[in-house]
């Protein structure tokens, strides 16, 4: 903060006569600065989502596994940013492809083009090279974070970290390049505005594959029917969901890739109304199906609405946005129950929120005349066909080698003691028998 340089500047200015320094500022410079500020704000908002994910996952699981979840989510952010700097960014935005539209790689590491090429000319005055990298990098970790919630309370820490590195460094950017990198799906006019499919489904498929290989938590399915394993902190869950909604303003709003007032503010409105409708839809559904309204379902419903609108936030009408939110909120409640029926144990509902609603949202883009259900469905299937097997393979290899599941004893005592040798709430009396 070298205000003294500022002082000098001012003196200079005064010397020249006030405002003189202003002459060489163009409207384009000012626009570039404003646009870039918007993108940086979006970076902060997306960053905040990682805290949101951490608290949601912690809130929906048991106290004895809290440290482990927090650890995973902290590590993922670091892994995401560093691998994205090393490989991901240039794999997802290769510039020109090696296998046209399918695969490209711009080389290792990050470096801004010289001069204006890395600044005002980098993206037509919308943002700088560094802003672009960081915005995209903040997205990258998300895919692994989604998996983290689904596998919580039973996965071995090292195996999870290895999975995350591979999934975030290679799978996510590789498949991402097909749309956002300008690949073949983009050319087919497949539309996924901010990532219902590219981010959320990619994470969701990874989560599904992982929990299928991992199996349910001990005591989750007792002689054939599902038992509840209540999360230990509703306040943390709620804090997380609000932070995620907040972050979504940047996740979707930033995906406009400029500060364009009309476009961005419209996206913020569709995003907010879909989230609100998701709350309402899930509230009614849980009240009807469970007699008493379940807070965790309503909060899942809010996220469901947000994931659902992500693909078409810029393209659908306000009413369509509300509809998408309401449908996703309603489906979310049923989907959580369905996965339990199928004995697929997902402690936080990640597969429901990110996979199921990610698919719904991607298809719903067809509500806008510009896009066709066929192409949207093709995109959905493609990502499923690639990401599920990929995640399954990685986890399978880990299962056969390092092993992916903690011992029964450790699972009972909790992963906090087992993996980290510490408690999350030292001194508090907590019944650990469930």
């Amino acid at each position: 903060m070298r205000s003294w340089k500022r002082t000098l500047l001012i003196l200079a200015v005064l010397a020249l006569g006030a405002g003189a320094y202003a002459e060489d500022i163009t409207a384009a410079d000012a626009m570039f600065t404003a646009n870039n500020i918007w993108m940086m704000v979006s970076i902060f908002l997306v960053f905040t989502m990682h805290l949101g994910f951490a608290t949601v996952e912690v809130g929906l699981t048991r106290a004895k596994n809290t440290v482990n979840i927090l650890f995973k989510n902290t590590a993922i952010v670091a892994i995401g940013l560093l691998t994205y700097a090393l490989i991901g960014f240039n794999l997802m935005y290769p510039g020109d492809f090696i296998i046209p539209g399918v695969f490209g790689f711009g080389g290792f590491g990050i470096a801004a083009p010289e001069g204006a090429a890395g600044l005002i000319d980098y993206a037509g005055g919308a943002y700088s090279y560094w802003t672009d990298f960081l915005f995209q990098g903040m997205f990258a970790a998300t895919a692994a974070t989604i998996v983290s919630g689904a596998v919580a309370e039973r996965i071995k820490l090292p195996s999870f970290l290895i999975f995350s590195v591979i999934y975030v460094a290679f799978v996510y950017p590789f498949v991402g390049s097909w749309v956002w990198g300008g690949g073949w799906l983009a050319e087919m006019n497949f539309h996924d505005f901010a990532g219902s499919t590219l981010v959320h489904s990619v994470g969701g498929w990874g989560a599904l594959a992982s929990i299928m290989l991992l199996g349910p938590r001990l005591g989750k399915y007792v002689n054939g029917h599902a038992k509840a394993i209540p999360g230990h902190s509703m306040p943390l869950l709620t804090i997380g969901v609000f932070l995620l909604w907040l972050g979504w303003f940047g996740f979707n709003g930033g995906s406009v890739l400029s500060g364009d007032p009309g476009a961005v503010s419209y996206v913020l409105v569709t995003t907010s109304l879909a989230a609100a409708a998701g709350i309402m839809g899930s509230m009614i559904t849980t009240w009807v199906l469970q007699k008493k309204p379940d807070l965790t379902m309503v909060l899942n419903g809010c996220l469901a609405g947000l994931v659902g609108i992500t693909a078409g936030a810029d393209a659908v009408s306000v009413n369509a946005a509300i509809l998408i939110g309401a449908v996703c909120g309603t489906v979310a409640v049923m989907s959580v129950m369905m996965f339990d029926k199928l004995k697929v144990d997902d402690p936080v509902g990640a597969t429901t929120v990110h996979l199921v609603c990610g698919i719904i949202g991607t298809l719903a883009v067809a509500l806008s005349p510009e896009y066709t259900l066929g192409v949207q469905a093709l995109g959905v299937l493609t990502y499923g066909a690639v990401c599920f097997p990929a995640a399954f393979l990685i986890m399978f290899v880990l299962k056969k080698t390092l092993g992916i599941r903690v011992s029964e004893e450790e699972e009972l005592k909790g992963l906090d003691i087992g993996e980290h040798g510490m408690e999350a709430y030292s001194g508090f009396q907590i019944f650990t028998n469930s």
Partner: protein
Amino acid sequence: MKMKENIMKLIIAYIQPEKLPAVKQALYEKEVFKMSVTNALGCGQQKGYHETYRGADIEVNLLKKVCLEIAVNSEFVDSTIEAIIAGARSGNIGDGKIFVQNLEECIRIRTGEKGPGAIG
């Protein structure tokens, strides 16, 4: 030993948590001022309740209770029991139980004082 046995009793009562203030009040009136309280989970005739959490079944059959332990000299036993009942009874299943045991010895840590005198 024998004798003492009859002199001091340990009264253990399991009551509904929300009744604690009333029971304390009733005990004070009977001039029973000393007690120890812990919170416990109880399972008895009161059948517990079923809820669903995220659609899955959750059967809560261990209900929150409060456990009182009160050491008294035998002449206080009856009045103590009456007081507990007075404060804790609602007439509904789940009101709880009172158990009485012999106490062989009682020592006040502060003074080392022993026997009946140390109780109060």
